[in-house]
């Protein structure tokens, strides 16, 4: 108690508050931003090695192929997400179907699934991999298509969330007004609601694109089990999986190749961010013309109903069924006994995720508050853009970069610490993003009133602002935690720490598919128990304060 009181006292001095903010910004820069892009600055010192790679045309064609795959995949996946996510978001927000509430929860579930488990589940469902006795559909044999099917699963919930968030904010009066002016429902939506979506679409696009670009573990498992991870012309890679594959080869010096691929991924990803922002904000839906007859026909109840059914079927067949298919694998014959190894991995995972989340909360809150409360100033905008940087960079490239940066400072022996740093990098934006949105919703006059009533700034924050944004803060923390729990690429690229996803990848590499399935299911179970428990704690806490 007295510690909090001391902080209260300290907080009333504006100089102390400034110092705290400055510290948070410095930590943000030194631990998150600079290490994330360090790899690009390491190119000159590794130039001779990189030149060798550049002259190796077989290697280069694999690299370019992988990068092309990554970006084209991410683009296709995101476009599909937009097309199928919009009707789903619409259904969740605007319609009151009785099953809507359950659907709402189900849509989020793949987010709690570690992507390695999803990868395993997807390949068993859509493909028919050797060494697995569970009957899959066997429909997909092309690695490109398989990866698309996988990536849709974990990007789709982001898109639906993002779009439904925006849709909730768009005043339905606009649409009603358009209809009183004689527009059919379809015309009203097309000319009024969709154009108002633009900002939301940019965010959704960037989120899904980045997530797809960055995913390593699930993609690696899919490709590995399809036998596509051979380093020659028959192989199929995405950027991150190529990095993992090369890293796994016990060759002497793979660093130049890693630096090259990582730098290319980072540069292209950042370029993509700017291009997407520029294009989407200028994009105008060009059809001024309306077709009243056509609009009327498609506004009917039948068309709307069909659309809802299709949106639901898509979610069911392409997202939910493949996610849960892994449970079927438990019914097969097989033995798994390495529970000690699994528990050790769980311990490592929780340590990393917990430490990263605590760090995110402590140093993310002041930055989020600054961004939210100083909108429009140059400094806040700069911070806002910088926060997005680790989000868009593929985590494997981030891991390579981080490893180099801290290795340069002689910290490479402290593997666990570096992995935590890596996880901080890509979870920090998730928490800050969530929090900025929530704080912006809260009228600053609440805190001002608290101050006029005699509250110290920290007291006002604690007793007034915090209770109002508590649910968003916790949601952000849970998001960061589960994201960290499921991360493969960054961990793999930084150091030899066996978190659960790494453990599962190792089992797959050893062709122990049953063990991988069991561990995946156990990891899913742990994630669910954890999230469910947290939800109970949150709802209990809701009563107080």
């Amino acid at each position, binding site marked *: 108690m007295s510690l909090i009181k001391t902080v209260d006292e300290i907080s009333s001095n504006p100089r102390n508050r400034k110092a705290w903010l400055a510290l948070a910004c410095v930590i943000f820069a030194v631990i998150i931003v600079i290490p994330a892009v360090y790899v690009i600055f390491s190119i000159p010192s590794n130039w001779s090695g990189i030149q060798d790679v550049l002259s190796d045309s077989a290697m280069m064609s694999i690299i370019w192929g992988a990068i092309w795959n990554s970006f084209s995949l991410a683009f296709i996946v995101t476009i599909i997400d937009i097309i199928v996510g919009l009707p789903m978001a619409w259904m969740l927000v605007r319609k009151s179907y009785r099953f809507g509430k359950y659907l709402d929860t189900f849509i989020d579930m793949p987010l709690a699934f570690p992507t390695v488990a999803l990868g395993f589940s997807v390949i068993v469902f859509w493909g028919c991999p050797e060494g697995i006795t569970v009957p899959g559909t066997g429909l997909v044999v092309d690695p490109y298509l398989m990866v698309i099917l996988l990536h849709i699963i974990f990007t789709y919930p982001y898109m639906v969330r993002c779009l439904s968030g925006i849709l909730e904010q768009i005043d339905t009066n606009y649409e009603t007004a358009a*209809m009183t002016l004689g527009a059919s429902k379809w015309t009203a939506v097309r000319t009024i609601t969709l154009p108002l979506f633009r900002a939301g679409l940019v965010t959704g696009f960037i989120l899904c694109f980045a997530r797809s670009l960055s995913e390593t573990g699930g993609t690696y498992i899919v490709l590995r089990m399809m036998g596509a991870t051979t380093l020659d012309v028959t192989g199929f890679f995405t950027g991150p999986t190529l990095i993992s594959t090369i890293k796994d080869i016990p060759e002497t010096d793979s660093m130049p190749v890693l630096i090259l691929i990582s730098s290319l991924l980072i540069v292209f990803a950042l370029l993509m961010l700017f291009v997407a922002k520029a294009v989407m904000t200028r994009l105008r839906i060009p059809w001024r013309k309306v077709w009243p007859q056509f609009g009327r026909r498609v506004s009917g109840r039948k068309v709307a109903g069909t659309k809802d059914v299709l949106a639901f079927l898509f979610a069911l067949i392409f997202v939910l069924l493949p996610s849960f298919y892994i449970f079927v694998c438990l019914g097969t014959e097989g033995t798994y006994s390495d529970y000690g190894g699994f528990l050790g991995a769980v311990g490592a995972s929780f340590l990393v995720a917990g430490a990263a989340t605590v760090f995110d909360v402590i140093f993310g809150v002041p930055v989020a508050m600054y961004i939210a409360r100083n909108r429009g100033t140059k400094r806040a905008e700069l911070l806002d853009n910088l926060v997005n940087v680790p989000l868009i960079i593929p985590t494997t490239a981030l891991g390579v970069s981080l490893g180099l940066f801290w290795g340069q400072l002689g910290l490479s022996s402290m593997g666990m610490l570096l992995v935590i740093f890596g996880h901080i990098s890509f979870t920090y934006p998730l928490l800050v993003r969530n929090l900025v949105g929530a704080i912006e919703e809260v009228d600053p006059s609440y805190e001002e009133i608290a101050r006029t009533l005699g509250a110290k700034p920290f007291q006002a924050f604690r007793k007034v602002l915090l209770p109002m944004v508590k649910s968003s803060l916790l949601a952000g923390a849970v998001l960061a935690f589960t994201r960290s729990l499921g991360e493969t690429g960054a961990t793999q690229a930084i150091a030899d720490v066996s978190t659960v996803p790494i453990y599962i990848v190792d089992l797959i590499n050893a062709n122990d598919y049953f063990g991988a399935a069991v561990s995946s299911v156990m990891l899913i179970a742990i994630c669910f128990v954890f999230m469910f428990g947290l939800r109970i704690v949150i709802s209990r806490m809701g009563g107080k304060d």
Partner: protein
Amino acid sequence: MPKIKLEHVVMRFGTVTAARDINVTINSGEYVTILGPSGCGKTTLIKMISGILHPTEGRVLIDGADVTDVPIEDRDVGYVFQNIALFPHMDLKDNVGYGPRVRDMSREETDAVAEEYLSLVRMLDRSGYLPSELSGGEQQKVAIARALASGSKVIMLDEPLSALDARVRVELRYDIRRLVKKLGITVLHVTHDQEEAMSVSDRIILMRKGTIHETGTPLEIYRDPKSIFAAYFIGETNLIECTVVKRTKKGNTQVVLRDGSVTRVAGIRFEVGDPVVLSVRPEHVYTANDGIRAVVRDVVFMGTYWRVRTEADSQDLIDYNISADTDTPSKGDVVYLVFNKKAARLFARPIQGLQEEIVLE
């Protein structure tokens, strides 16, 4: 010919009944305000007419045709929202031209209509502006132009002025009336501001708890309200509980207050011994040498006149007005009050009590 007709209209939201058995007729070209406390079902009523809500029971007729099942876009009923709802991503011209545009008119026709209606509300010089670049009052003018430009002969105004500054509100309400009268539009205007309703409408519909409580011209409702609630809600009034003691030969009713003091009201609608409520507006209360004895409790300057608040010996609170440039009594002074007996009204005393009768929600 009646333009709009509602027959036995009922609207239920789950267990809440927002409108119960509404029957009302609006004539062509009439400017009608729907007045009532918040939550009385005013907005529900106009939303049912415009098709935004579908009534649970009953029929809506426009121009004699049953439109109950006609969708919003085919009703040709304009609607102006309280929060204005101009499309934020379109300039004023595109906003006003939206109605013609979705009816598939050519670009030239659309622009011509938009310009015509923008000039009607004197906003033509701003046609390239975005809604966010205008003040609230200007935005609402454009919203009205937009509703009219779609060709509707009937428009619903849903508290169009309540989000605006006091002075803008007063100016704009006369502008709106002038405009719709010029174009011969039928208007249903929802408001909770009784002064607004009094000053612009041809007729007032007073709603309460989902029913139509009373209708009449502003003057009728003000001068001769048919209920205690109407007297209380429209204009200001003193309500005094008393009992009829005598019906005079001159056609007056003599009543006695709780303390035994006596006053007279024109008309003989009640029998001797009936419990009644006397309603008299502050402007119809005067001081005299003799009358109801009261003690001044407070004197308030209302901007253009003084309001004197007194407590009579019967413990009734009675307010009266005096002009701004006369001397005011002081607190504690004793005054004798008389009523303009022609302007005062008697109502049967409600069984559930006076407070229950005038409660707003």
